[in-house]
């Protein structure tokens, strides 16, 4: 089995194995200690399994009522008690897609700037600013998005987009500022620090010798980046994107503020919509009736399964990468 080794660490000789002929009492104490810590570690496993089991049990009424049609129905009618996940799924997909389209290239060039181009002082300042952006709570992004950024979008960005690209159905409609596009852009800002942090690590893992040989041949920075660094680290870059995707799918409060909470599906990105997480945040506390609540919990279950798969995939992907490149990520 491959294990992560830190330099200078010796693994094989484990001199404190409690089984190695120690006084009886200490052996018992050590074994108890080991058991206590192991059961605390087991809590993590139990919780992950618990999420799945508890949520599945809690949405039984909705599962029984709607079955598989829940996934493809666009109804969301609290009065008639007809529920379907389609509009939330659509909104999650669209807002996440907008976020990825903006965040991935930006993160890539920011990581590049941090690793290859910036002088040390600038690198520290920029790096810290990007890290702090990751620390700002979701609800603060929401406040800023709702009161400042959405009006800015409505006044300046959306009219310009409508004028320039209005021949596409994506950019038609009244520029209200509250809608998919605004939510997607704010999401992009929120996931950007996570993606660029991983990408920066990937760039740093490329052995300097490989890059130096290319520079020695007379390649420019951009050529080295495109033909050496990015090719060498392509797996890591993809893994970084998946981590960002996992974040974007479940972001709640910022999106709940700016997406408009509307369960109709529109082609225009200016139109309000909803995502799974924003529907939960906006409607849960006012939901009454078992079926309504269990439909909301089923939405949550879908979100859990999706983000679980994304996280497992991203972690496995990056782990095999760490192993093959032989460095800590």
């Amino acid at each position, binding site marked *: 089995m491959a*294990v992560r080794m*830190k330099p200078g660490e010796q693994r094989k000789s484990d001199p*404190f194995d*409690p089984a190695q002929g120690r006084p009886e009492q200490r052996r018992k*104490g*050590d074994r108890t*200690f080991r058991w206590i810590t*192991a059961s*605390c*570690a*087991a809590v*993590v*496993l139990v*919780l*992950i399994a*618990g*999420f799945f089991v508890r*949520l599945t049990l*809690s949405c039984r009424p909705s599962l029984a009522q709607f079955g598989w049609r829940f996934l493809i129905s666009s109804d969301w009618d609290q009065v008639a008690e007809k529920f379907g996940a389609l509009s939330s799924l659509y909104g999650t997909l669209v807002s996440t897609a907008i976020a990825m389209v903006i965040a991935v290239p*930006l993160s890539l*060039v*920011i990581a*590049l*700037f*941090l690793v290859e*181009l910036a002088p040390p002082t600038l690198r520290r300042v*920029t790096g*810290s*600013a990007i890290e702090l952006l990751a*620390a*700002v*709570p*979701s*609800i*603060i992004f*929401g*406040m*800023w998005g709702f*009161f*400042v950024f959405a009006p800015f979008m409505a006044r300046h960005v959306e009219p310009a987009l409508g004028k320039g690209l209005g021949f596409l159905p994506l950019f038609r409609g009244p520029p209200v500022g509250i809608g998919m596009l605004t939510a997607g852009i704010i999401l992009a*800002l929120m996931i*950007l*620090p996570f993606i*660029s942090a991983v990408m920066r690590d990937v760039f740093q893992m490329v052995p300097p010798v490989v890059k130096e040989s290319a520079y020695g041949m007379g390649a*420019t920075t*951009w*050529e080295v980046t495109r033909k050496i660094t990015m090719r060498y680290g392509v797996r890591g870059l993809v893994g970084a994107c998946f981590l960002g995707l*996992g974040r974007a*799918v*479940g*972001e709640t*409060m910022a999106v709940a*503020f700016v997406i408009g909470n509307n369960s109709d599906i529109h082609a225009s990105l200016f139109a309000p919509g909803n995502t799974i997480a924003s529907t*939960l*945040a906006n409607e849960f*506390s006012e939901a009454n009736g078992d079926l309504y609540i269990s439909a909301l919990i089923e939405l949550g279950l879908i979100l859990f399964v999706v*983000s679980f798969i994304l*996280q497992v995939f*991203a*972690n496995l992907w990056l782990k095999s990468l760490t192993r093959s490149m032989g460095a800590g990520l």
Partner: protein
Amino acid sequence: MIHRPAAGRKLEDRLLKVISACAALLGILALAWILLVVIEKGATAINWDFFFHRTLPTGEAAGGVGNAIVGSALLVGLAIVIGVPLGMMAGVYLAEFGRDTQFGTAVRFSANVMMGIPSIIVGLFVYALLVKPMHMYSGWAGAVALAILMLPIIARTTEDMLQLVPNALRESALALGAPRWKVTFQVVFRAARVGLLTGLLLAVARVSGETAPLLFTCLNSPYWPTSLNGPVANLPVTIWDHAMSPYDDLVRIAWGASLLITVGVLVLNISSRLILRRSAHE
């Protein structure tokens, strides 16, 4: 080999440099814009009443968020009491016993996955687990949700920090005849205490701005917190409620609360970084 003139390649390269500098500037500007807005709008709400009065409905003068500050401190404090010992012990297992066991690998992997699970799912889980069976939104449920969010963060940082402690230190303590738990708590923990502290600070920073899990578990309340067996006022949900109200005075208070949370979270973050950097220099 295809010959390409140097001028075009250099121009391309220059262009990339400009673009990447612009992207980095964009990130900094976004942060600056958000912070400036929060400071500018939040500062108008900050006064004596803001800290020492409870949340009041609109129209009544002198509402504040005193109850939400106390409530948030209670919830986060309780989450620390629940989550930190559990997380640290899990981290001890990962670093001291489970470095290359199958169980250890499974736990480490699950903790990584759990850190990426949306916090709203944790809220929903605690709702289904505690709130619904007890027919009551409660501060306890809120604290449990926050503790669950802290657990994987604490476990992983504890593991990382304990792994940095050289094995020779453990070996010498064991050679003196100390039992394993004593070695862990009195030798290894002491050697890693700065790292453990930063991990704790980062975990607290991470959960103290969390809104979504509290929305389903402890709701909000306009009163001073007197018991955890019912909804408890807290800053994040107060921001959400006030911001969605159509009244200017409540929105102003929401901005004040936003400023409070932002400053708190950023101070925790920056100080943990400074602590870590200073200990690295020593």
